[in-house]
């Protein structure tokens, strides 16, 4: 589902963020991407979502080769990928419902379909009673759950999360992780960048570790 072949990323200032990284994530896999801050975790996720470009190698997401991907294709790539960042990045002037509905509006679903899908996903993240709230009226954990709902409402085949529990206390982080596992059971390929070892050790999933831009080991733990 996600394949990196000898991928390197060098920033314009000369800094080598990723150095000859190889790995392959099968469809339906659940993996953690770990490493210290600055190890290149966010860069790697950004490359997979075509937010940044890489300088060498090839990345294949689904069937899409990302080297020389045209700007026109990027939106369609991103519709296959749910992206969750450390900050929820919600639109403050829209309700929870409207925030979650946005990917469906973009993809051109009918109002009826949007309503039923948004309600379903809000039920899953336990926010169905807050669909008319505005983001600032919610707690941090709730805001992050809205962001997750927005990321999965379009039923993407891949979910990328960059420190999704970074701002949350351990209990809430556990709840969020639980949600990700539920989506994984439905067939979604999941890659979570995190340096929260306590959280990562609480479940048994594949772990990919980055250090100074290099992949150290990718043991598959069932």
């Amino acid at each position, binding site marked *: 589902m996600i394949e990196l072949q000898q991928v390197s990323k060098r920033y314009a200032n000369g800094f080598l963020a990723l150095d000859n990284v190889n790995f392959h994530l099968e469809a339906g896999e659940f993996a953690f991407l770990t490493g210290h801050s600055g190890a290149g975790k966010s860069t790697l996720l950004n490359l997979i979502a075509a937010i940044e470009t890489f300088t060498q190698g090839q990345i294949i997401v689904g069937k899409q080769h990302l080297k020389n991907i045209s*700007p026109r294709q990027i939106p369609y790539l991103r*519709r296959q990928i749910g992206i969750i960042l450390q900050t929820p*990045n919600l639109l403050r002037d829209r309700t929870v419902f409207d925030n979650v509905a946005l990917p469906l509006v*973009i993809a051109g679903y*009918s109002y009826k379909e949007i309503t039923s899908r948004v309600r379903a996903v809000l039920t899953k993240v336990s926010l169905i009673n807050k669909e008319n709230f505005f983001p600032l009226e919610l707690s941090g954990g709730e805001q992050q759950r809205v962001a997750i709902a927005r990321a999965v409402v379009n039923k993407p*085949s891949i979910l990328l999360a960059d420190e999704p529990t970074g701002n949350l206390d351990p209990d809430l982080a556990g709840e969020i992780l639980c949600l990700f596992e539920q989506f994984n059971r439905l*067939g979604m390929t999941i890659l979570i960048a995190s340096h929260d070892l306590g959280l990562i050790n609480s479940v048994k999933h594949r772990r990919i570790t980055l250090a100074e831009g290099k992949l150290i080991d990718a043991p598959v733990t069932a």
Partner: protein
Amino acid sequence: MRQSQPKNLTKRKRSGFLKNYFIRHIQAAFNSIGQLSRTPINTLLTSAIIGIALALPTALFILLKNVEVLSHNFQQTTQLTLYLKPDITENQARELSQALQKNPNIREVRLISPAEGLNELQQQAGVKNVLEDLQNNPLPWAITILPTSNNHAPEGLSQLQQELRDLPETDTVQFDTDWVQRLFALMTLAHRAIYALSLFLGLGVLLIVNNCIRAATEHNQNEINVIKLIGGTYAFIRRPFLYTGATYGLLGGILAWQLVDLLLLWIKNPTHHVATLYHSQFHLLGISFFDTFVLLISSIMLGLVGAWFAVGRHLRATKTA
């Protein structure tokens, strides 16, 4: 879930592409109208600036159109007077006037005998006493000529005048083409000046809209980034801003139209009064349906183009985000 998605997508694409397209446009339109109505003062001020900028060239165009009608009216009454040589007899004069009647460039010919000429002169105040002192009639035979209406351009008139002057019977041709030529020259100049002015003010409107939309894109930077992140195309991002630009243009155009209408209403009665004093049937031409249509379409286009450039530049500048 993964397996079922592509099937759904193609099915949806086939069945409801047009419907979706319209839904998206309606969504974008409502989105932009909503944003505009949330900042009514700002919207009205921007539209007012655009309206005033467009009202000026529109008013001048209407004014020029009126002047053209007026000058056409003048030319309808343009006549040349042909004074024949003193030794021309009545028969010769009649023959000539019949010959002239056949000239395709001449609409109407009227022969005036010396007696009639004297009579006409006597009608005019002040000359009467002088004429009474005369022993015999000094006036020659004369022919007044109305050119056909397609001969009203200065060149045609000059040519006709030359033709008449070259006739052996002619003593003098009385007609002052200079003022017609001057009027035409002035109107050509006015046309050019108004076009140039429209161009500048149109450019100004473009920049105003561009600036407003640029500010709006910066204000909505976060929203644009989020939309990009969840797979929104450039077209999707651009659409509401295009509607905003077009709405500014439309509101400005309507305002310009109303301002010009108001101006015409204001000068209608005085114009009519002046026309009556000159015994003229002249009626002020208003802003026609076609003029309004052109005005509104151009103002909407200016808004659209201004917005297009603003969003395009913004999207290029934030490409990597």
